[in-house]
């Protein structure tokens, strides 16, 4: 039987780090369900094959810009920097228009901005659309950085800390199980069946 202080340390690590990452686990669990069932996806197709209509833009406004003469991507990046809109500039949405204007989209969890820079590059029109709490949930899944967002620095810290906590909980949980006498057989059976089932399913989807 290992020394009691070691077990007490393992329990404290598992307990307090588990409490620290509990909300993070809930966010990831709920967002995973949303992805798997296509909840809150945008029009244009989603993973479950269902199409959900987008909401009408909730806000519209225009801003004067300092015009630059550069390729479309650099123009879009310059415009976004001047607008100070927080979010990821989705390069695949960049569309030079026939009249010389340029449209692109910037997204962040729960919201996206459709930006139209006029042909002269001296002004931009922004349409902001909210995607609701499901959009926030989906957007947070995997988010670790958001350009032009002070908040995202704290979220990155929270993400890395939670991941560290999860890995520590996995390790400490495994060690705590290893020290058990009771339920050890059941635990090994669960682990074995789970591993075999997971391997079989992985093999099947690669067919």
């Amino acid at each position: 039987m290992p020394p009691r202080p070691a077990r007490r340390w393992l329990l404290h690590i598992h307990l307090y780090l588990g409490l620290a990452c509990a909300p993070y686990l809930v966010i990831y669990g709920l967002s995973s369900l949303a992805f798997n069932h296509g909840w809150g996806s945008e029009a244009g197709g989603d993973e479950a094959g269902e199409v959900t209509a987008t909401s009408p833009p909730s806000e519209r406004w225009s801003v004067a810009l300092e015009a630059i003469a550069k390729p479309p991507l650099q123009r879009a990046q310059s415009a976004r920097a001047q607008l100070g809109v927080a979010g990821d500039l989705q390069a695949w949405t960049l569309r030079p228009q026939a009249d010389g204007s340029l449209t692109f989209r910037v997204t962040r969890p729960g919201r996206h901005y459709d930006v139209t820079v006029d042909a002269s590059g001296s002004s931009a029109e922004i349409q902001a659309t909210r995607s609701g709490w499901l959009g926030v949930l989906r957007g947070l899944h995997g988010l670790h950085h958001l350009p032009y967002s002070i908040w995202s620095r704290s979220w990155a810290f929270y993400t890395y800390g939670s991941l560290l906590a999860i890995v520590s909980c996995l390790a400490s949980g495994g060690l705590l199980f290893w020290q058990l006498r009771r339920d050890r057989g059941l635990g090994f059976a669960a682990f074995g069946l789970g591993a075999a089932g997971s391997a079989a399913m992985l093999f099947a989807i690669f067919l």
Partner: protein
Amino acid sequence: MLTWIRRTHMLMGLALAGLLAMYTVTGAVMVWGRRWNSPVTGSVQARPLPDSWRRAQGDGNPDSAAALARDHYGLAGRVDEARREPEGRWHVIARRPGLRSEIRLDSRNGTATIALQRDGWARTLAQLHQFFGYRGHPRHIVWAVAVDACALALIIFAASGVYLWWRLKRDAIGGLVLAGSTLYAVASFAWLALGP
């Protein structure tokens, strides 16, 4: 009750450890491995179209086109798209992690053009992480059930862990840690959903 919850917390973790580890690794590759060079290889081949298909053109049914692509030409993966195009042509796209298969069925000249795109290990892992949804072959449905099980497990870990702490210890340190983390998560969520 406490024993049952503790046992559930433990057994669920052990049973799903493999899948959860897979999602951790593939998620990390998605987020931090974008710069990793992952070569893509492709091939294109043309094969004759069965006469029966040429005559019936699948009766205009996307499922027939998908079935032909899968059963006759051995297209691997899950059919994501099967659409009819002008002049008796069909376009079928199937995907599985690491492989994109595209087949164009042309009834006019009686050929099927099959294009395969194979991705490198980094993109394959990323696609494995994003492979979900209740559609496709029964084995894909089983996979979707496994994805749901992993998602529910995360929620159950958190809920059961908090419950066990509340019933067995309920100390100030744990309370502060939980309250702080929860407050930050809820505040972030609210700001993103409702804020300017």
